């Protein structure tokens, strides 16, 4: 009776765990949690059966559950680290895209101003300010709040005084 309860518990655990992993597996094979749980479960079951010589079934079930739990935790930790790396990479890519967008707008405004004189240069600058303002203002405010320094709007602009600085250095 007791053995059947353990078997039911481990089957339930694996069913829930593997059911949760199904989506991740659809995307890209086995998730780290699934791998960890299966490897831990199998290893734990084998170890439990070997250790508990008086009742190898119970030993296997207990070892399997414990091993699966530990394996799941290790897999979850690995998955969290992988997601954090992906999030940072995506954030960096967004920042780079944003900087490139601003630089392109700046170059366009400058080029249009060169060809058509002062009036169109002023118009280009206004258009640049209007198009870049929503992105720039919110990003800049968040940056300033986070770092305590103003961001460098001319980062990447080779004509500026400080084109490689993340922080704004140009004041006077």
């Amino acid at each position, binding site marked *: 009776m007791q053995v059947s309860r353990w078997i039911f518990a481990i089957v339930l655990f694996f069913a829930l765990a593997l059911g949760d992993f199904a989506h991740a597996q659809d995307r890209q094979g086995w998730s780290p949690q699934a791998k960890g749980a299966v490897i831990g479960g199998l290893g734990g079951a084998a170890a439990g059966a070997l250790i508990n010589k008086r009742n190898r079934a119970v030993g296997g079930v207990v070892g399997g559950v414990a091993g699966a739990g530990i394996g799941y935790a290790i897999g979850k930790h690995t998955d969290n680290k992988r997601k954090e790396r992906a999030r940072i990479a995506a954030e960096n890519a967004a920042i780079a895209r944003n900087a490139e967008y601003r630089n392109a707008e700046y170059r366009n405004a400058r080029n249009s101003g060169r060809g058509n004189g002062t009036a169109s240069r002023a118009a280009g600058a206004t258009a640049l300010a209007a198009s870049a303002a929503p992105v720039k203002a919110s990003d800049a405010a968040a940056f300033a709040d986070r770092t305590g*320094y103003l961001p460098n709007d001319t980062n990447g602009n080779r004509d500026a005084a400080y084109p490689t*600085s993340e922080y704004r250095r140009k004041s006077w």
Partner: protein
Amino acid sequence: MKSFLNLLLGGALLTACSTPKAPDTVNVQTLNQQFVEAWNAKNTVQLDSLLADDVQFVQGEAHFSGKAEVADKWIRATQNTISNLKTSTVSTGTDASLAYEAGTFSVDVLPEDPRLPRGTGTGNFLLLWKKNAKNNWKLSLAQLEGLPVQVRR
């Protein structure tokens, strides 16, 4: 006759021993004060009038040459972004045709967008003045080094 000759000799001696007149130097603090006040008053006409024709401006990777370029790319590009410019002198020097002042500056940085915070800019400066052919003192070199602009709390 003898006393007259002694008087003449004494006068000649005094004339020979008198030190030559000191060269006509300038008070560089006064020049810089005019310059800073013109910045704070956003008086571009006065700022232009203080620039030499061959003025040089150096800041980070930027280098502007000539009155027109410096007036356009430094003064007009910057004047509406800052206020309350203050300087603190570290070193000065003057001679007959050259005067300089170097030190640190601080300035309020105005936000371009109302959602952005105000900033406080600090840095180092060197202003070099030269006397031109008309005996007027003009700014010949401005070298600025800006430090990261802090959010004003």
